[in-house]
């Protein structure tokens, strides 16, 4: 007689044993299994809410891959770019470069939990999670490869994470912290509970909704399919957090959540905020970035915190204030430093400005004059007069430009440590740095490297150092294209 699923599943999930040749601490060292170190008794009741067998996993994944590949096959390669808005193409290029190989780092993180997670059910879930993350790398690489024939910069889908491009360094700084240099417990809280439960809805489900409206159905299927995996393995976070709270580690849990919320916010305002509101065509925008953040991210996060009786992060008021401004300030940074990017950047046109002002009633008053000025400068003196040539101040934690929340509202701050003064874009970044200064203090930002002579200060050489071949690969104004001035061999004149 064939056993029913529920009769054997626990036997397959719960395969913990008592080690005889080494003790439990040697098998699961604190350095990599995580703090607090608890005996297995404390982890014995680790349970995921929705259980999956390996057989079910394989069948589901096969169906999901078939759905994505079916859409790809239906839209034959010569028609891949048909009907795609030029801004949307740049959005996909930006997304692919920033995300594809980050998923590969996610596979390393899941594998760490698959070995050093403290209960076998956790380790089983993480094994499936590692397979998920490999899939999340491979599909964008495949789709990016399809698009290469139409736009050579889609090689940044694979190349980006192997370069010193400044935005990618910022992303790697976060992913190294969250994925690669974290123990199993920190991974479960940071990656599964905060990043996946909190933020990936935004990048994958919100983007899928926009991709549908932008008629990019391969991308829509890809990101929606990825999010179904994320939702499954994100479950790892809850039972780990519960175990920590039951064993006197509330303060540690709160710190990990606060830290990673802020760090993820920084990345997502740069990646999703700017792309959704300056690259996605108007016809694809059904909600603003702020509305997505509020409905899809913060409301869910609040429920999660309430479930565990945890506090809102101490910087919540600043985060709420930034929702109205920070990504708009960063967009001006991306635009004026566009020659250091691998995708093109848009100056909002009249209709987009009206939309932005409808969604953000202070937008025109705050940013309108700055964009007007760039427009006038272009008309008067060409592209050269719309680019920034000085170095932006970069934060020594998030590695992003030290943006104002809005013009006149500056939150930058510094700290002196070990004979060096560090710059931060905001109090939360400085606070995280102070909590784990030995982890972050030796890292040099791109600007630190230029000032120290470790990276070139001349723009043409800096392009090469960042992996950008100028002028063909470097970002342009989305609507004006490659200005003939760029062909000048010394564009820094």
């Amino acid at each position, binding site marked *: 007689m064939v056993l029913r699923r529920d009769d054997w599943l626990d036997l397959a999930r719960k395969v913990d044993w008592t080690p005889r040749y080494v003790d439990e601490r040697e098998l699961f060292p604190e350095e990599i299994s995580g703090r607090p170190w608890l005996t297995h008794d404390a982890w014995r009741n680790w349970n995921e809410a929705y259980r999956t067998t390996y057989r079910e996993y394989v069948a589901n994944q096969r169906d999901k891959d078939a759905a994505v590949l079916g859409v790809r096959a239906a839209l034959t390669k010569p028609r891949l770019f048909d009907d795609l808005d030029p801004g949307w193409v740049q959005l996909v290029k930006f997304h692919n470069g920033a995300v594809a190989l980050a998923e590969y780092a996610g596979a390393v993180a899941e594998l760490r939990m698959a070995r050093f997670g403290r209960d076998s059910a956790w380790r089983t879930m993480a094994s499936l999670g590692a397979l998920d993350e490999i899939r999340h790398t491979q599909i964008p690489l495949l789709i990016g490869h399809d698009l290469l024939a139409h736009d050579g910069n889609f090689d940044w889908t694979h190349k980006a994470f192997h370069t010193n491009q400044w935005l990618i360094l910022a992303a790697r700084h976060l992913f190294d912290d969250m994925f690669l240099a974290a123990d199993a417990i920190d991974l479960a809280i940071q990656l599964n509970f905060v990043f996946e439960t909190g933020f990936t809805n935004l990048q994958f489900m919100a983007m899928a909704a926009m991709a549908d409206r932008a008629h990019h159905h391969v991308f829509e299927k890809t990101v929606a399919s990825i999010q179904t995996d994320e939702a499954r393995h994100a479950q790892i976070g809850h039972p780990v957090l519960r175990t920590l709270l039951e064993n006197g580690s509330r303060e540690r849990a709160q710190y990990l959540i606060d830290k990673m919320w802020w760090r993820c916010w920084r990345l997502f305002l740069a990646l999703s905020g700017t792309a959704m509101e300056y690259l996605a065509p108007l016809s694809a925008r059904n909600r603003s970035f702020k509305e997505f953040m509020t409905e899809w991210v913060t409301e869910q996060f609040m429920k999660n915190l309430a479930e565990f009786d945890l506090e809102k992060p101490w910087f919540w008021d600043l985060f709420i204030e930034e929702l109205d401004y920070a990504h708009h300030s960063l967009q*001006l940074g991306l635009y004026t430093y566009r020659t250091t990017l691998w995708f093109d950047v848009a100056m909002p046109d009249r209709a987009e400005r009206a939309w932005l002002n409808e969604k953000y009633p202070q937008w025109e008053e705050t940013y309108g004059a700055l964009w007007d000025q760039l427009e006038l400068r272009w008309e008067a003196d060409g592209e050269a007069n719309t680019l920034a040539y000085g170095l932006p101040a970069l934060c020594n934690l998030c590695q992003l430009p*030290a943006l*104002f929340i809005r*013009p006149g509202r500056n939150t930058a*701050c*510094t700290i002196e440590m070990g004979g060096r003064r560090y*710059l931060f874009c905001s109090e939360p970044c400085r606070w995280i740095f102070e909590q784990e200064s030995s982890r972050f203090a030796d890292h040099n930002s791109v600007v630190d490297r230029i*000032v120290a002579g470790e990276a070139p200060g001349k723009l043409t050489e800096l392009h090469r150092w960042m992996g950008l071949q100028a002028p063909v690969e470097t970002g342009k104004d989305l609507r004006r294209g490659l200005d003939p001035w760029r062909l000048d061999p010394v564009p820094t004149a």
Partner: protein
Amino acid sequence: MRVYLFGFASDDFLGRVIVTPDQRTVAQLADQLVAWGQAPERGGPLTVRNEAGDILDPAATIRVAGLGNGDIFTVERR
């Protein structure tokens, strides 16, 4: 001696790096930052503050004003 500072002009949207000899005056430093920013032609008197919010003497040198490597200063138009 050359120093690198992080300057924030009140009508700009991000901080900018200024590398300059510390013998230059605070007023020259402010002019240099504004020239790199978004509205260099706007003109008008400038107020320079350090991170603590103290107003710096525009005639003082950068060194005498107490600014050194990695310090923040802000420039406001009056």
